[in-house]
């Protein structure tokens, strides 16, 4: 037996999707008792690689060694037998079961909940988790669910834990405590792989970082010898600057006034509760909060897609003139357009709400305007012209403008959506997670487009998840917590910790 074999070793691992190599000849190893970050832009193949280790995909070529032995992992069950477990971005829990029941589900041996509970408490004590085994999953916060997922793996004696973007749904405080338990697990000899694209976290928590770019393995380096710029360049493959510009707002005028806005959620609790704020032209209003704190409902209410509760007020002041107030309450998106208000909305769910995935660019261009001219027939010509314009100005990579947009990459899909929304010369621009899943270059392009609109006097709302970005691009930040407003802060003065606390205040 070789001396201290690596926990996991990949040798020339390759996976094709269609004709495209999602992973190509990837070779590196993970040691026992280390935290390794797997860094790369979206589409670089991080999740594909880990899915092969977790038994979700089967490699088209190459070998995997676990503890020095060559293995073939055909299913998640095989992975468990080898001591490998993965926590996906979307948790796989049964809502109506308790924590203990979820842990027992699928575990080996006879069902004995008392034993399971005892074991869970033992694990919690050992690594510093906090979890009530009798709590139902539907009563849990996102971070509690994540804890439960981790415990599920530890209960099955997993030695190699893979976490896919674990901090995406957490507040800064929750992230900190997650990192705490991850370190405890490492000290216990377990190997932890964190899939991420957040550089600060990479540097903070991991010992080594493996970098992938476009399906190729680039290098593994010690984080003690790395910095953000260097990692970005390895990830992107060329020099980049990491500064988001923030022009000073000019000629601000109040365009949108929201007062005591309440919206009912799905399970008859208030998704939004008594929110009041203003939006000014020429200003970017950041909206912060843990995901699911009411950001989506807030933007959809303004855009006329969500029913508001009695007493809510959303007023629009055309050109900032206070005597020409128009109420948006109870108006459909169509009626808002008919009032002469150009309100652009880049929703979170790009293909599910902003675009028609099965259609090409021209048909997506006309989504809001197809009915503006009279008659029963479609006008195909103008949308084609717009589509070509947007393809050229924003460099949309598509085989043809008629290619269904759902087959484009995430960044190009977002360019089509943002391009359409901006081309209507809006007075209000609402964006939800505008750069989620985009590569760094496209993200910066989107930031530039937003700033361009701001300079034109548009009132911009920017819902974001990365507090660093929010603090860099916004003028003011509205912080949401569980559907309630925790206040509005000046983005030039506020700190990340301050906002983090406002996000989780109860």
């Amino acid at each position, binding site marked *: 037996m070789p001396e201290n074999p690596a926990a996991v070793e990949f040798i020339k691992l390759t996976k094709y999707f269609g004709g495209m190599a999602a992973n190509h000849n990837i070779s590196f190893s993970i040691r026992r008792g280390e935290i390794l970050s797997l860094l790369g832009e979206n589409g670089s193949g991080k999740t594909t690689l880990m899915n092969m280790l977790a038994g979700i995909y089967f490699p088209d070529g190459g070998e995997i060694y676990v503890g020095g*032995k*060559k293995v073939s992992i055909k299913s998640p069950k095989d992975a468990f037998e080898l001591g490998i477990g993965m926590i996906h971005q979307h948790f796989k829990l049964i809502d109506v079961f308790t924590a203990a029941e979820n842990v027992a589900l699928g575990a080996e041996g006879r069902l004995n909940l008392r034993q399971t509970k005892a074991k869970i408490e033992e694990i919690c004590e050992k690594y510093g988790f906090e979890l009530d085994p009798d709590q139902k999953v539907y009563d849990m916060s996102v971070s509690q669910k994540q804890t439960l997922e981790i415990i599920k793996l530890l209960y099955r004696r997993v030695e190699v834990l893979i976490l896919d973007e674990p901090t995406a749904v957490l507040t800064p405080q929750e992230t900190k405590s997650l990192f705490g338990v991850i370190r405890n697990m490492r000290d216990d000899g377990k190997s932890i792989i964190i899939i991420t694209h957040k550089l600060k976290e990479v540097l903070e928590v991991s010992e080594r970082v493996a970098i992938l770019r476009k399906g190729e393995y680039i290098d593994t380096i010690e984080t003690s010898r790395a910095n953000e710029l260097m990692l970005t360049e390895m990830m992107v493959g060329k020099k980049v600057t990491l500064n988001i510009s923030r022009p000073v707002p000019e000629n601000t005028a109040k365009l949108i006034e929201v007062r005591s806005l309440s919206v009912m959620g799905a399970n008859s609790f208030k998704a939004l509760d008594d929110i009041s704020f203003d939006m000014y032209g020429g200003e970017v209003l950041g909206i912060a909060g843990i995901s699911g704190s009411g950001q989506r409902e807030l933007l959809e209410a303004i855009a006329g897609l969500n029913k508001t509760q009695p007493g809510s007020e959303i007023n629009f002041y055309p050109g900032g003139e206070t005597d020409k107030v128009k109420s948006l309450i109870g108006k459909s*998106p*169509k009626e808002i357009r008919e009032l002469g208000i150009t309100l652009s909305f880049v929703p979170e769910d790009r*293909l599910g709400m902003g*675009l028609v995935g099965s259609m090409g660019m021209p048909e997506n261009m006309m989504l809001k305007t197809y009915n503006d001219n009279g*008659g029963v027939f479609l006008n195909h010509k103008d949308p084609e012209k717009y589509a070509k314009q947007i393809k050229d100005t924003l460099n949309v990579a598509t085989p043809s403008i008629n290619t269904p947009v759902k087959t484009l990459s995430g960044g190009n899909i977002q360019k089509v959506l943002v391009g359409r929304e901006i081309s209507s010369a809006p007075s209000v621009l609402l964006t939800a997670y505008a750069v989620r899943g985009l590569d760094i270059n496209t993200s910066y392009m989107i930031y530039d487009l937003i700033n361009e609109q701001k300079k034109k006097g548009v009132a911009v709302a920017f819902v974001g998840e990365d507090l660093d970005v929010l603090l860099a691009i916004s003028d003011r930040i509205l912080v949401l917590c569980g559907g309630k407003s925790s206040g509005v802060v000046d983005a030039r003065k506020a700190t990340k910790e301050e906002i983090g606390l406002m996000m989780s205040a109860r």
Partner: protein
Amino acid sequence: MENAKPVRTAEERSRAPLFHITKRLSIPKWEAWLIRFLSFLGALVLIALFAYLTFGINPLDLYKTMFKGAFLGKNYLIPTLKASAKLLCIAVALAPAFKMKFWNIGAEGQVLAGAMAAAFIMHEFPLLPNGLLLLIMCVAGIVAGGVWGFIPAAFKSRFGTNETLFTLMMNYIAAKIVDYFYNSWKGVKSALGMINGNMLQKATFEKGYLRYLWRDSASSAWYQSEDTWFIIIAASLAAAMYFYLKNTKQGYEIAVVGDSQATARYAGISVNRVVIRTMIISGALCGLCGFLTVSAQSHTVSSEIASGYGFTAIIVAWMSKFNTLVMAGVAVMLVALENGSQAVTNAFYATTGFPTSSASVISGIFLFVIIGSEFNINYKINFRRKTREEA
């Protein structure tokens, strides 16, 4: 991991699975057609083996008979085309609903509703001039089919009911209503089942026949054949529906709603309005088909006159991916297959004892392979590659 029992040996563990399936991102057109063509040949071989091994039928004779039974001569070609037209008409009616992802399984019932209304008019107003009678019958059929489509759509919009179950149940309601009017209404002698059946009532006989719209001529000009009209109307409907879905605003709205209702709301489209409007169109076209069936085919009504095509049309719509022009080809193929395999059993039953149910076997093999070829177009099966150093 001491207590984890090794389920498989180390060698088994390190061996790749026999095959795994991956989705193709894209495939060249010629390759897709090559797969389809090879599947077609494959189906022919399988059917030949079946016929030869079970009853010793010469495959060449079999295919000759099959082709003849489907296409050759006036006695076979026209019935095949006419049945295809009926099938096509219903499939075209389903196209807008399916494009909207509204799973209308109720075409059978909508056809029956239309046929029932048309027959009712035919029965009640035999003294009207034939042209006017046909017009009223046509409108009645369209309205009745439209109502049958409207009801499930309205319930779906208002209460969120499941359209698949709802439209399916509406079929049985329509069938039972037709049964009542056919058998019991106004007593046995004057129920709808007796339409045009009573040879003594000279005055009413042949009223409501499409072919007598151009009356009194013994010559059989092409426009005096109701078969021709059935085929022409179905083909024009297919072309019109293709244009409607592609080039009109309503067609665009249907496609947007079908792709994502959230996107439709985002665009300011009223989803409920589109759903109801489209289902009325879908039902109305089925109703039109019901009228055609009564006036140009059966000249009576029964719960059997849709001949199950309301369900077969669902297969046609899916196989042609809701493209109404492709539907014409698929409809002809299905009907030719049905008629062809029927001809085969008719021809060989007496000599070899080839049973009637083998017609179903033949069309079953055919459909299985043709639909299976679409799997091969969308997915790729990767077999385990042989590695030299296995041990």
